[in-house]
């Protein structure tokens, strides 16, 4: 018996039948093909761009932009170079995304919680909100908020006024400290509102649209998370005499977070990407500046590389932070 098996055990099989070698060979071939394809595509790009006289160049970034931007949070004027304009656009995008994230999270959490309320009216409102908003395209909503709601606001003295806050067609004006010391409320100068803090209606429309749209999706994520907590937890809390809100706050939500956070990640990333629809309502974000830059310089590939890099970086950053949060809220085995 042993003598029969011996040749097979001793003899080394040819490499094309060797289970230890074969996977490596296949991987090497596939890897080589992928590398070749990438090299070909890059070579093709360079060759065609060279033929068209458009080889990648970044010198234009230092040339004066000579276009203006309506509202910026970092100083910018038309004499500054293109990269400053793009940076100002990125800052505007970040402002919209950051405030949008905070607003949508609060609204979505409230709406998600409300769908478990014992109050039927509140439950109904939450359901209608989610179903209506989820099923209408965001672009349509943004255009609605801007052209139908915000541009219908009155201007000048007829503007909506509550102490410290004025909402006019030209923007939202808030009271604040001027030059760091003097408390100033919005006031009219030559029939134009002046205030320490001003938000344009373009930004207002974008933010409103993003918060309400993303809020609906986040509400569903939160609802799913709460629903994933076993009923027994509610019943146990109830039997201990703990109220509805306290049960939610101290018992259900902490457990629901484990389910909510990964879903939130997706919604946050969508919100960041959706912010590029700002151009539809006249808000000058990164995409809008990039488009103007592209038209003035003709550097399509470079401008799109910058755009791709910026949005990819932003989304990866959000993912990174959310993954950190995810690890933090997971149950730690002891």
């Amino acid at each position, binding site marked *: 018996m042993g003598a029969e098996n011996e040749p097979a055990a001793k003899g080394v099989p040819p490499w094309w039948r060797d289970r230890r070698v074969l996977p490596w060979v296949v991987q090497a071939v596939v890897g080589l093909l992928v590398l*070749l*394809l990438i090299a*070909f*595509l890059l*070579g*093709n790009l360079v*060759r*065609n761009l060279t033929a*068209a*006289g*458009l080889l990648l160049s970044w010198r234009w970034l230092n040339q004066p932009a*000579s*276009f*203006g*931007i*309506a*509202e910026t949070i970092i100083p910018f004027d*038309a*004499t500054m170079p293109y990269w400053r304009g793009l940076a100002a656009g990125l800052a505007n995008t970040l402002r919209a995304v950051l405030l949008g994230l905070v607003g949508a999270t609060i609204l979505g959490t409230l709406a998600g919680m409300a769908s478990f309320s014992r109050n039927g009216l509140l439950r109904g409102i939450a359901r209608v909100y989610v179903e209506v908003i989820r099923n209408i395209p965001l672009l349509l909503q943004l255009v609605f908020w801007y*052209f139908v709601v915000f*541009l*219908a606001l009155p*201007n000048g003295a007829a503007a909506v006024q509550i102490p410290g806050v004025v909402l006019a*067609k*030209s923007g939202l004006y808030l009271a604040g400290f001027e030059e760091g010391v003097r408390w100033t409320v919005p006031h009219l100068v030559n029939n*134009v509102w002046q205030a320490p803090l001003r938000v344009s*209606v*373009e930004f207002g429309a974008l933010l409103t649209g993003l918060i309400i749209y993303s809020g609906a999706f986040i509400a569903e994520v939160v609802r799913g998370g709460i629903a994933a907590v076993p009923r027994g937890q509610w019943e146990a809390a109830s039997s201990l005499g703990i109220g509805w809100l306290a049960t939610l706050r101290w018992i259900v939500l902490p457990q629901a977070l484990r389910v909510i956070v990964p879903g939130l990640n997706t919604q946050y990333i969508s919100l960041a990407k959706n912010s590029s629809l700002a*151009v*539809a309502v*006249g808000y*000058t974000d990164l995409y*809008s500046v990039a*488009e*103007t830059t*592209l*038209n*003035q*310089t*003709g550097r*399509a590939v470079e401008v799109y590389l910058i755009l791709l890099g910026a949005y990819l970086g932003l989304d990866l950053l959000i993912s990174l932070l959310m993954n950190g949060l995810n690890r933090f809220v997971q149950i730690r085995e002891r």
Partner: protein
Amino acid sequence: MIRHPFTGLQQCGVVRKLGMALRRSLLWPLTALLAAQLAGCASDSGSGVQSQKMATINGRGKLVCGVDGKLPGFSFVGPDGAYTGLDVDVCKAMAAALFGDPGKVEYRDLNSSERFAALASGEVDLLSRNTTMTLSRDAPGGNGLSFGPTTFYDGQGVMTPVTSGIRTLKDLAGKPICVESGTTTELNLADRMRELDVAYTPLKFQTGDQTYAAYLGGRCIAVTSDRSQLAAKRTSFPSPDQHVLLPDVMSKEPLTPATVNGDPAWADAVRWTVYGLMQAEELGITKANVAEKLAEAKANPNQADLRRFLGVEGDFGRQLGLPSDFVVKSVAAVGNYGEIFDRNVGPGSKLKLDRGVNRQWTDGGLIYSPPFR
């Protein structure tokens, strides 16, 4: 010559056949690899004119023309779905010159931001979309377009409601102004206001519709664009007489049809078809009398200029890669330049613009066709 669908590179001969075989098999992605060796292929021999673009257009059997589509007088879709306007007539003249049929045009509505990409990618053959000719748009290091003859000499203006109390550019200090992004007007506005040292708020929108909607919604006190465009848009406002153009002319805006750089034969065909419309006006050839003039030229061998112009003798058409009677066909389709102007933006239209600098050079204007020789 055939272009690869993904890479846009030329293919020929054996390599092309191999490519076809591969494409039929499941290995079609590999055809991209093949395209690598193709750049050096010799071009098809045959007619004296070598134009990839014209071969594509002739193969397709129709011209794809990029227009605005929402600008009365220049390119506008009527209630019957038909395009009309000065820019549209340039497309029609070109189709008539190529195919003898002004209807063989497919129109693509383009906004000002996407127009150059559409032309560069070959999505449209001809961009006839009230586009200003500038150095950076023409230069190969910039947008890399190839411009034909200017079909409308315009200037940038500012429109504001009559009730706004604004009379000059300086009155716009601190005020929001609506402008379409990706236009020369956006830059001119910034330049002029900087010269005047007037701070203002530019509100940029991606499309003309959004820009004028925001203006009519009262978000901005003024809107800026080419004066002809402002006048054209005003005709579709609810109450056109409530809006006024400021007298200031902020820039030169020569509106010019464009083709992609790198195909001089196609650019020449467009250039001389448009010049043909201008020359026809100078010679008094109209849509109505072109057949009569042709008969006259055929009958009288002494009218050498007219005979050459109308293609009775000589080979101007063939030199351009067009039929010899391309001028006759295009004038018969849309009329001469003067007729096109009057019908679309002049006295025969709602815009009622004055010919102004767009008169023939013989009347002291800028419309001047080089000789057909």
